């Protein structure tokens, strides 16, 4: 039999963790040296599909698995050394970095493959040079920034000389400079003759060098063809009703004067001034690690500022106690798993008001659950929900205490646009919103957009009002 040109072939693949199927009847094949873009909104099964390709599903993670995944003429279900040819870079670098130093991280895979000393030295040096990590080889992993951690992971995977590389959202949560750098690296890997599959949900600058594009929606492949049309198909899926801007009131809700803060000797925030008006939507953006989240934490007094004053409703922040601040400012953090403390959805939403000795009426609760599309799941355990649902639940449980100011940290992450715009519409005009985000699509909703740079905030002008 002549050697087949198909490197990966998937036949009638379906998979489910529990009752609800995540992948349904997927068929496609990938040729050698092809670069493929896998598009789809969050929660559509991209990560699960990538895991199926690597053979981790069904070999390590259990579930109902049907169909066949064939890589290089071998079935992943029976052939367990498939990892020799296939590398995967997951979304969160924090959990993937296994050792404590950069050099040991780069060498880890090679050590497992039983390379000897000289070979490893040679390869590590080569890849450190290629990825610009040569000066940082002796660093502790915890001292690296988020983007650098991602680079380390990609370098470690590339050093293992695998034929196929899978990337799960390699560009999420990165600033534009870092995005370009990592794209450049991916391009280099492609030119070396590797087969690349990249899963993304925001293909803003990605389209440049891909040969083909697959669009996933609700566990099915909807489109398989060239990139340009694929983007259009995705746009149709993600198109959501527009959210309109509303002119804010003139009364000032929060006034920040000359705020500074730092963890070590040096200040991260250096003199920030801001006046937040009632019912205004403010977006704060900026590079990774520039202090956006730190600023937000200072705003609700969770971190004690070093200098400066904050006035909340005309009263100094120091005169409130922590509970009174929590009643007025609601803060939604990024990771939903950390914000869930109770055993079912209704209890979770109710526990916020309970802290302030209030209770939600049944009607209010129903309304709230319906705006957040959680009514059907009101008796579920919060941890059994999907990522998007969990994020919606965290926003719901904050808004149930009815705070005047809402601070949202990366609200669009893991959220599909339809639900998110519905939530935004229910807030705009009633609450003051401060959003911290990289998403440029959210700038359209904002009254003012600020960029953080070198510890200061600069207002930037953006497109016309919608």
């Amino acid at each position, binding site marked *: 039999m002549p050697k087949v040109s198909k490197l990966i072939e998937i036949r009638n693949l379906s998979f489910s963790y529990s009752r609800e199927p995540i992948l349904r009847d997927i068929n496609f094949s990938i040729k050698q040296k092809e670069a493929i873009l896998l598009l789809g909104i969050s929660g559509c099964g991209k990560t699960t599909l990538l895991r199926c390709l690597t053979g981790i599903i069904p070999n390590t*993670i259990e579930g109902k698995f049907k169909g066949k995944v064939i890589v290089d003429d071998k079935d992943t279900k029976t052939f367990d050394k498939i990892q020799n040819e296939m590398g995967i870079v997951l979304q969160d670098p924090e959990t993937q970095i296994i*050792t404590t130093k950069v050099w040991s991280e780069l060498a880890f895979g090679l050590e497992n493959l039983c390379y000897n000393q000289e070979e490893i030295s040679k390869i590590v040096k080569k890849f450190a040079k290629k990825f610009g990590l040569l000066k940082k080889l*002796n660093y502790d992993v915890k001292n690296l920034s988020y983007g650098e951690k991602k680079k380390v992971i990609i370098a470690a995977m590339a050093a293992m000389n695998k034929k196929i590389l899978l990337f799960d959202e390699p560009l999420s949560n990165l600033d534009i400079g870092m995005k370009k750098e990592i794209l450049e690296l991916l391009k280099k890997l492609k030119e070396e003759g590797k087969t690349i599959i990249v899963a993304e949900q925001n293909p803003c600058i990605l389209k440049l060098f891909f040969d083909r594009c697959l669009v996933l929606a609700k566990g099915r492949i909807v489109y398989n063809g060239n990139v340009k049309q694929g983007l259009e198909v995705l746009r149709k899926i993600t198109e959501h009703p527009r959210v309109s801007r509303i002119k804010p009131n003139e009364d000032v809700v929060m006034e920040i004067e000359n705020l500074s803060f730092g963890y070590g000797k040096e200040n991260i925030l250096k003199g920030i001034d801001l006046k937040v008006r009632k019912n205004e939507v403010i977006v704060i953006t900026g590079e990774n690690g520039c202090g956006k989240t730190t600023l937000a934490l200072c705003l609700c007094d969770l971190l004690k500022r070093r200098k400066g004053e904050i006035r909340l409703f005309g009263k100094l922040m120091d005169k409130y106690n922590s*509970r009174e601040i929590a009643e007025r400012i609601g803060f939604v953090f990024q990771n939903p798993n950390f914000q869930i403390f109770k055993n079912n959805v209704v209890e979770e939403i109710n526990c916020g008001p309970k802290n302030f000795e209030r209770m939600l009426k049944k009607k209010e609760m129903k309304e709230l659950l319906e705006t957040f599309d959680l009514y059907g799941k009101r008796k579920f355990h919060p941890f059994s929900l999907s990522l998007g649902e969990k994020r919606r639940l965290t926003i719901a449980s904050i808004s149930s205490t009815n705070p005047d100011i809402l601070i949202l940290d990366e609200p669009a992450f893991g959220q599909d646009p339809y639900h998110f715009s519905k939530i935004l519409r229910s807030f705009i005009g009633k609450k003051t919103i401060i959003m911290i985000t990289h998403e440029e699509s959210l700038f359209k909703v904002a009254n003012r957009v600020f960029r953080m740079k070198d510890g200061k905030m600069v207002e930037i002008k953006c497109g016309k009002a919608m």
Partner: protein
Amino acid sequence: MWKSYVKIICFVPLIILAFIMNDFFLLILVSLTSFVLIKFFDKDLRQVVISLLKFLVPTIPLLLIMWSLFSNFETAIIATIRFSVLTITLFTAFSCFEVQETFELMSKIFPYKFSFIIVLSIRYLEVIKDDIGRINLIRKARGFEDKGNIIRKIKSKIELIVPVFVDSLFKAEDVTCALEARCFGMYKKRTFWKPDFEVIK
């Protein structure tokens, strides 16, 4: 490899001496030599001393008081000196070994899949420590209060454990995925790379 053997050979006698010696001046000498050894093995002396003081300053008075309650003051002083010398030698000995080094040394005795637990736990303790700090902030932001009697305090701490636990279960799935992608455990043996640090610096 010889360097880690030298470390073991230097520290094991010191620890044994700290256990059995009865002379006050010799005990002081033991702890001083362990500090000298840290300098000799190129470790940051200042950081070690600071973290030692952080542990010893609150514990020494406590030990003195507790011990003198049960016996006389003299034995209390001797016991605390013994205790502090022991912690100093053990602490310095452990701080001289890098994570990778311990991994390699342990794999000489146990299969490497077991000794790998050390590397994993040290790395993920850091992650979990960060997580707990973040959860505390979140609880504060949502108006949870840790005041009240002891039972309520313990209850609120248990509520804190649940998200940490669940999140690390989710993380475990990712970690297995990452480990499999790096071919961990594919072969029965494994090599250990020592970087030539001249190039790195």
